[in-house]
Structure formats: C-alpha cells, structure tokens
C-alpha cells in the first residue's frame, strides 16, 4: 500500500480567514478516500490547491514521490493527475469509442501516425475495450456522445480520465443530479477501477460515502478533524456534533 498522494501541513488563508489550517491527508493505492465536510469548510479551496489552480501559503503536495507543490495544472495532469467533471464536456460529435480513443492517442503521442486506421482496431483496441467494459459503456461504444444521458456522460468522462492512465482520479460531486439506479451503477464502476487507480472522492451524499469509501476524512473550518474507516467516522463524536448534527 504505497502513498499516491500526500498533503503535508497545507496552509492557506485569505486575510483573517484560514481556509486550510495545517491539512495532512494521504491517498493510498487501491482505495477510495472520501473527503467530506459542511459547506464553507474549505473543500473547494483544498481541491484548487491540489489541482494547482491556487497557490498554497505553505506545506507540500507529493504525487507518488514527486513534489508537485509549484507545478502548473497542465504539468500536474501530465504527471498523472486525472480530474473528472472538471474536464470540459466531451466531443459530442464523436462516438463513445472515439472519445476514449482520442484520449489514448493524446496520451501515447500517436497523433502523428497518418497511416494506421482507427476503425480497423489495430490501435490500442484491447486497452480501450477494457476501459469501456469497466465504465459499462462497451455495448454502446458506437453511440455518439451527443445522445448520452447525464449519467452516461459521467461514465464516459471517467473512461476518458482512465485512458490517460492517471496515477489517481479526483471525483468532485460525481453523484450530483443522478437518479438512484444511476448512483448504484456508478458505485459498481468506482469499485472496479479503484484497484488500478485510487479515487479521491468529494461527495455530499452521505449514504454513498459511507457505502463505498474505504477511508473518510472530515474537513471542518479548514482542518481535518477526523480520518478513518466509515464505521469509525460514523461513531466518532466530534464529527457527529460538528457535521452530521445528530449529537
């Protein structure tokens, strides 16, 4: 179980307000680690710092051993950071297969290949097939992305992230706006992909978090007040009082 993403003593404040107060956090291989916290707890500020959209005041961010604290967002993506739902929308005129293939071609720098045909399947066919099977879109692979439902679009975006063979995937509110059966489907997908790509999950939906997250960290007023398995967190008193409000 080695550490994929480590955040050490991250500090960030806007004038008087401390948005991130010595945050320590780590994501290990093969796990879904959920980050929960009430509105205004500093979740989005933390995510922005992890993504490089916002500079932290102090502290370090390590991505599988490399210190990426001062890298730009593009460089972080190249190093293997995939973020789903911040990726701008998919290419609606392309089929599902072509969308994932494009990501593969980009990642493996194959775009100067003028000769081999993308229809014949010589090219990374197997890899794309496994990705599409994982995100359960293999049967509709020839469907244009423009006809996808809201949920299917989410699944495709995860497929595209996987095609970039990232070191981790950051999922920001993946269940927002999904119907119950769609949420179940997504849970299955998450469990399938967590083994080769760990997931940092930001989600409001408590029953989702408690049902699939291996580890949960609770962020309140910019500080991680508790971190542990879902059962530990459920019973933890100060978490209840600060956040779940059922003390």
């Amino acid at each position, binding site marked *: 179980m080695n550490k994929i993403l480590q955040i050490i003593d991250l500090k960030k404040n806007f004038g008087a307000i401390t948005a991130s107060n010595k945050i320590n956090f780590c994501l290990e291989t093969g796990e879904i680690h959920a980050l929960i916290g009430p*509105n205004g707890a500093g979740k989005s500020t933390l995510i922005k710092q992890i993504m490089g959209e916002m500079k932290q005041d102090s502290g370090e961010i390590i991505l599988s051993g490399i210190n990426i604290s001062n890298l730009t967002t593009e460089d972080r993506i190249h190093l293997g950071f995939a973020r789903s739902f911040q990726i701008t929308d998919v290419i609606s005129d392309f089929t599902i297969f072509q969308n994932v293939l494009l990501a593969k071609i980009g990642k493996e720098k194959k775009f100067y290949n003028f000769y081999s045909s993308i229809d014949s399947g010589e090219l990374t066919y197997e890899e794309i097939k496994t990705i599409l099977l994982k995100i359960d879109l293999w049967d509709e692979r020839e469907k244009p992305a*423009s006809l996808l439902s*809201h949920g299917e679009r989410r699944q495709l975006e995860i497929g595209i992230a996987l095609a970039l063979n990232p070191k981790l995937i950051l999922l920001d509110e993946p269940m*927002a*706006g999904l119907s119950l059966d769609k949420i179940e489907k997504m849970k299955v997908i998450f469990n399938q992909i967590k083994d080769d790509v760990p997931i940092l999950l930001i989600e*409001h939906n408590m029953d989702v978090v408690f049902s699939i997250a291996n580890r949960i960290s609770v962020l309140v007023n910019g500080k991680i007040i508790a971190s542990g398995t879902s059962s530990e967190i459920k019973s933890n008193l100060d978490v209840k009082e600060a956040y779940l409000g059922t003390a």
Partner: protein
Amino acid sequence: MNKSIILKLDNIYSSYSNVQVLNGVNLLVRKGEIVSLLGRNGMGKTTTIKSICGILKPHSGKIEFNSVKINGMESYKIARLGIGLVPEGRRIFANLTVKENLIGSSVKGYWDLDKILTLFPIFEERLSQLSSNLSGGEQQMLAIGRALMTNPSLLILDEATEGLSPVISKKIWNVLREVSNEGISILIIDKISQDLKEFSNYSYILERGKSVWNGKLAELSSDNSKRFLGV
C-alpha cells in the same frame, strides 16, 4: 385576498442542448409579492428564468405574464411587457460606461437616473467610468439599476447575492426591500439564508427540473432542507 396573478408557470418542460432540464415546473407570483426559487446547482433554476425571459423556448407548458401567454415570444417583446432581468453572472456591458449601462435600455417611468443614484450613491461620481473595473458587488448593483431603469412590473434576480460579501449582501437586501415597497413584484433565486427567509413571502424548490416543494420557507422541515438543498 386573491391579489391578481402577475406571473404563472404551468407545467413547463424545456431542454437545453438536447439534455432534458425542466420536467414540469409550476410557479406563481402575485402582484407585489416576493417569491424565491431554490434548489441545488444544476436543478434547472436558471433554465426556468431563461424560459420566462424568452432566451430559451420551452417545448411544452404555459407561461403567462399579466394573463398574456408569453412562452415562445421574442425575448425583447417579453422584456417590454415589464419583466426586468438581473441575470446569473450579472452580464453587465463591460465595454460601456456605468451611465451607458443604465440608460442603454431604459424606459420612461418612475425609475430614472436620479432615483437609481439615490439607491446606489457610489455610482454618483463614477458614471463616466468604464464598468469593466467595477467590483463584483458594484456590478450586481449596476445590473439591478439597469433592470430597474426599464421600469418593470416584475423584477427577476438570478443568484442575487451569490459570491458577495455579507456587507454588500445586506445592502442588496435593503435595496430589494425598497424596490418591493415601490410595488414591484420580485422573483429571486438565491442560496437559502436568514435574509432570504425573512424577505420572501413564498418559495418554490426545484429538484431535477421539477417543482417539488412550495410554501413559506419558515415551514421547511430540516430533513426536507437537507434533502432538497443539501444544507
């Protein structure tokens, strides 16, 4: 005391770049009333406003303004019937001065430049300034002033105090109270807050493009609030 209905949405369905967004929205605003529209992000609040203002054509259901059927009408015609829009993201004309923003689409009536300046005194010496260097709060005030200058009978605000500091939000709420006292009905979208609870007489909540709850915000149960608003 059935005050005459100024705006009526009846079972509105609408789609946006072939994604079905509104699946049956019903809403009522009576004369002089303040109605708030709530719901989590992506639940169709802005699409509802765009359907009312004619920016989007709903594909079924009926929208009536002062009992005139307006869905499908050109947005400039709907605006001229008396709907003033303060849009999401404010969309002030950054290439124009503050004054030009105000007078560009103004219509003769109770509200004129002097009254707007009394509402928002900070604009007094900045009328000839380019509005691109206004702060977020000032842009919101300018957008409200611009809408008032068209002398609407219904003012619609999309994300009224979104992203504004508490001090500025307070100012916006006071202005809206004054505007309401002048007899203008208001339809407002905003995050749930103490101010919104005191300010709006009646509220509707949207969940995945459907109006799922309506009533006075004070009567909203905590688990309904958690379920629909996630707070």
